[in-house]
């Protein structure tokens, strides 16, 4: 029996109340209070103009989007086959793959990022192996630069993509694939003409959620990046923690929040459509 609207709201009420109290109120407080410090609307606009169009913020926004896009692409390329394998696997194999994906997430991002630092360092495991078998003469620089950020973020974000895609792939009606085969389609055609279009909404949802999460990334670029790998979240942290310039931080937060909310609106629409199709 479907829940009545009232029951649904009542069941949701504690969660909503918690989110409003510990999440929305502090954000509103911070942004409102910080902007009020700046003064009138035109003064706020002046400051926004000065901050947002200064070199640093523009550069960081570009950086952030570029890194997020690259990471999302990599995550998709790695995640799609992985999810496919997962959606086909049964029993022990399924459990094994799932554990491999989920288990590392029982530890904190910081610990996992440090683990990567041990592997990728100048004298880390990967460089030692490559030097040992004579593939390279000089240690590769895999960390404290863009490469390190991309590797670290791709790893952290992979499960979000895999689990999103898995849900979409699992929902594909197998009979459709069998029907296509029965009509004489080659495996490639079945995949390209039937399976892929049916999982496309999952791809878009996965891409959006990965991209959104990547936009706000902080720990991984802060620990694994080089001097120039500044993302917008790091810049916000600096304004809060270093210069105590909270109005500026609030302005940057609004930018990040707006971009994220727009993307989220797309995400919500697409997952609604996915639901409707089922």
């Amino acid at each position: 029996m479907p829940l009545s609207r009232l029951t649904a709201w009542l069941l949701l009420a504690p969660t909503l109340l918690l989110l409003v109290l510990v999440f929305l109120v502090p954000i509103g407080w911070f942004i409102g209070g910080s902007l009020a410090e700046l003064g009138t609307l035109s003064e706020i606009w002046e400051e926004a103009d000065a901050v947002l169009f200064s070199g640093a913020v523009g550069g960081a926004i570009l950086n952030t989007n570029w890194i997020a896009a690259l990471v999302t692409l990599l995550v998709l390329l790695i995640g799609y086959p992985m999810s496919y394998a997962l959606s086909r696997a049964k029993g022990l194999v399924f459990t094994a793959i799932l554990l491999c994906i989920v288990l590392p997430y029982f530890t904190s991002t910081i610990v996992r990022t440090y683990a990567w630092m041990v592997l990728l360092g100048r004298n880390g495991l990967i460089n030692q192996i490559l030097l040992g078998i004579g593939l390279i003469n000089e240690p590769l620089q895999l960390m404290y630069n863009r490469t390190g950020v991309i590797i670290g973020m791709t790893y952290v974000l992979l499960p979000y993509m895999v689990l999103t895609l898995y849900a979409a792939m699992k929902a594909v009606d197998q009979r459709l694939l069998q029907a296509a085969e029965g009509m004489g389609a080659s495996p490639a055609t079945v995949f390209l003409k039937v399976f892929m279009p049916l999982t496309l909404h999952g791809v878009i949802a996965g891409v959006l959620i990965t991209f959104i999460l990547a936009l706000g990334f902080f720990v991984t670029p802060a620990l694994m990046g080089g001097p120039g790998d500044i993302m917008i979240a790091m810049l916000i942290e600096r304004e809060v923690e270093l210069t105590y310039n909270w109005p500026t931080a609030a302005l940057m937060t609004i930018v990040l929040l707006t971009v994220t909310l727009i993307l989220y609106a797309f995400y919500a629409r697409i997952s609604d459509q996915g639901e409707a199709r089922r």
Partner: protein
Amino acid sequence: MTDTMILPRRLLLGAALATPALRGAKAAGEVIVRTPGGVYDDIMRQHVYDPFTRETGITVRPVAATGAKLIAMFRANNVELDLIDTGDKQLLALENMGALAPIAYDQWRWSKPEDIEPEVKKTYQCGNFTYATVLAYSKTAFPNAHPNSWAEFWDAGRFPGPRMLADAATGSPNFEFALLADGVPKDQIYPIDIDRALRAMTRIRPQIRRFWDTGALSAQMMSDQEVVLGSIWNGRLQTLIDRNAPLAYTWNEHMIQVQALGVFKDARNKEGAQRLADFMMQPNVQAAYAKQLIYGPTNKQAQQFLTAEEKARMPGGENSQRSGFYQNINWWEDNRDRVNRAWSRWVLR
């Protein structure tokens, strides 16, 4: 020093505004003190907090808090701690906001104000130790000749290899060293010419593997040989050397920085905080914790409790006095915004 963890900073606003009061029923008999945390708390508990409790009956509770959290507390009119044990620059920022009470030197009964080094004895803050940023090098990479000045640190032709310097996130990027390397005499560093410092930084930047933002990262990069040269806090480096890491440093051209105590003017236990500050500044107490932190005492009378060997490892000892300079925090505090904007632009280039 403001050596904070990276992750919790994100939560600080929410935490500052939303955490319930830390204080329990024993309010009057407890001083809550902001500290850098970690091993520091253990050392201070042994040499300061526990003896203080035995003497006065007042318990001491160390808590972690970033500079922004302290400001958030003050602005929200909800000051949850009494004594602030942090970098002198952060205290200056709080002082400028009107958040601090004057140090009650006239009420001191354990320590004598006249014994405190004049450089660190200020109206609203009192230095409890000094630490130095030194030039460190790998003995593996430089077994014979090693860089002995910042000009030589900047000389990548003669001393090749990856390097590190402090990031603006530590509170101040190493502009002083850049200017020294560029030929500015030690007594003319301030006021810092930001453009000149950044031009000098640009020259060495290709050799910089990373600008370190926490003491932990700087120690890790030196001990993993991720870099062969770097600026680093002397205590962090000495700990590695004591564990037989093939590292060494020069006292030449080191920068002296100050850790200091301040009292929130709205603190619930202001009197207890003042008394704990007084207690901490005693010569024998200072000598005991300074020895373990490998940082320099600020009470002149503490020197008599230290061996020549111990003094040689600390800033303020004979080795350091000849060649060090005090960081001018007034300049840094006055130019906070300018530095940060210039740095962000430069670093993103």
